[in-house]
């Protein structure tokens, strides 16, 4: 009878099972070590040895106002992009939670579609919409709202529009997934006890959705700090972020060691924010509510 249940009984057997399970994880760990850790380690080494051990690249970065300003701009754009995506994404998630199933799945489909279509296509579409003779300017001039085309590309407007467009789904999914877990009868109860709609929202619905806001906002913030494509395509000189500066150092100036030092700084900033994220929200939340 004892053979009926193949549960591991002896300590030996348990150890064997643990070893077997560890061996399943091992190939992924080795692949990551070889093709992920070592390459990143090599830029770390490159930033410190030129050719002898030196901190000059790091010192140069923090002493040169040009670079500290770019670091500052990077953080600024990231905060702004996170806020705009929250301001648009939160009401969208709120409505999704309360919409009829047909409307909800229609909206969801649009959001998911914009989420999986190529990033380049999304940015390119905004070039077509925002450029001098683009769709928006054409509409505004034919309707007589403006006399001359507005400049909306290669400046802050372009970057903010492009980044917000990309980030909205990342904000909506976690907030929506948290909202679906909130019992709406709590709102009824609050109203029964005399709360107004406004009070019900600020004291019941909003605080309960905070974990989703935190998860979405931090995720978007982490992503935008390392953003490269949108500032490069839709931004101007003033909107170049740390990533763009790294690319310029490599492609135009062939300054590998300094580019490596900047990469290490960018990675460090990202990891600090991520540590915060992981501590309070857990990595699994990155998966959020991407359900179809």
């Amino acid at each position, binding site marked *: 009878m004892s053979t009926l249940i*193949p549960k591991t009984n002896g300590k030996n057997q348990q150890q064997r099972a*643990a070893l077997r*399970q560890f061996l*399943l*994880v091992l*190939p*992924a*760990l080795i*692949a*990551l070590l070889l*093709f*992920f850790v070592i*390459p*990143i380690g*090599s*830029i770390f080494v*490159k930033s410190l040895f030129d050719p002898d051990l030196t901190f000059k690249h790091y010192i140069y970065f923090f002493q040169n106002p040009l670079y500290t300003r770019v670091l500052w701009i990077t953080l600024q754009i990231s905060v702004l992009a996170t806020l705009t995506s929250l301001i*648009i*994404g939160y*009401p*969208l998630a709120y409505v999704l939670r*309360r919409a009829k199933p047909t409307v909800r799945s229609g*909206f969801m*489909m*649009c*959001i998911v*579609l*914009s989420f*999986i*279509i190529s*990033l*380049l*296509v999304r*940015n390119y579409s*905004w*070039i*077509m*919409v925002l450029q001098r003779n683009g769709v928006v300017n*054409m509409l505004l001039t034919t309707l007589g709202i403006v006399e001359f085309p507005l400049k909306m590309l290669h400046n802050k407007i372009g970057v903010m529009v492009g980044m917000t*467009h990309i980030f*909205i*789904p990342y904000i909506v999914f976690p907030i929506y997934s948290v909202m679906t877990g909130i019992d*709406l009868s709590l709102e009824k109860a609050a109203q029964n006890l005399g709360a*107004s709609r406004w009070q019900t929202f600020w004291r019941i619905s909003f605080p309960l959705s905070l974990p989703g806001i935190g998860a979405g906002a931090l995720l978007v913030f982490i992503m935008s*700090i*390392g953003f*490269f494509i949108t500032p490069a395509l839709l931004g101007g000189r003033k909107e170049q972020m740390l990533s763009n500066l*790294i*690319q310029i150092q*490599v492609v135009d100036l062939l300054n590998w060691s300094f580019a*490596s030092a900047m*990469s290490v700084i*960018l990675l460090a900033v*990202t*990891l600090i924010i*991520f540590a915060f994220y992981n501590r309070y929200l857990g*990595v699994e939340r*990155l*998966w959020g509510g991407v*359900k179809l």
Partner: protein
Amino acid sequence: MKKAAVKKTYWHDPMHVGWPLWIVAGSAVFFLIVPILLLVVMSFGSAEIIEFPPSRFSFDQYRMFFAHPAWQSAVSNSLLVASLTAVVATVLGLMASLGLVWGKFKGKGFMNAFILSPMIVPLIVLGLAYYVSLVKLDLLGTRLGLIIAYTPLALPFTVLPISATLRGFDRRLEHAALNLGANRFQTFMKITLPIIRPGVLTGAIFAFMIAFDEVVIALFICGSDAITLPKKMWDVIRYEIEPMLPAISTLLLLLALVVLLLIGFLQNRLAKRMGNG
């Protein structure tokens, strides 16, 4: 008096949403989807200049795209690299998920975080890192180099859906098979894998899309011999005006639609198999 007060209590259905919110939500969805639809309209216009609205209807942009050898080689590079990356990442991710979800050993939490960590490293950092390393291996500008670079990036996107699927899997089914005399490998191939297959395929599709769409790392490592579709698109958007990008965008929108339907289909199948659909 008391009755009047009760009547005055404003009863609001929590499911009700006022029109201002509807306008905000509707505009947000409009904002997300309309720029891409404009590209679809433009793609059927002229292939000499991109215009909106198009002054005439034609398939010229599509014809040019399919006749252009440089674009065709970019597409085939991307398809090959993305498919192989998906295969490698899915095999590694499936094995790792099995160990991480069901295993009991020390350091599991750390390993899990480690495997998911490529998701958060800025792509530009990875691009530089792979350039510096692949140069030493003489793999710059090769498809193998691209697969090496994309596998870690795609791995988390296989582990997440597969782990989620495994957590919903009833392991008593495995125990039953083992009791009936099947060995572990047979049990996995005949019982476990068929049931979790939709989750595994979802992971493979995600991995494919990650590798198919990646451009930042490609800028650094694909050189002039292994140009992928996103890299070619990047060059065109950045440096030259080639009026067939709307057509390419439309084709990529179609791909996204197919992926959306596939994933929806797989999730449905999974929900049915796990008995909570």
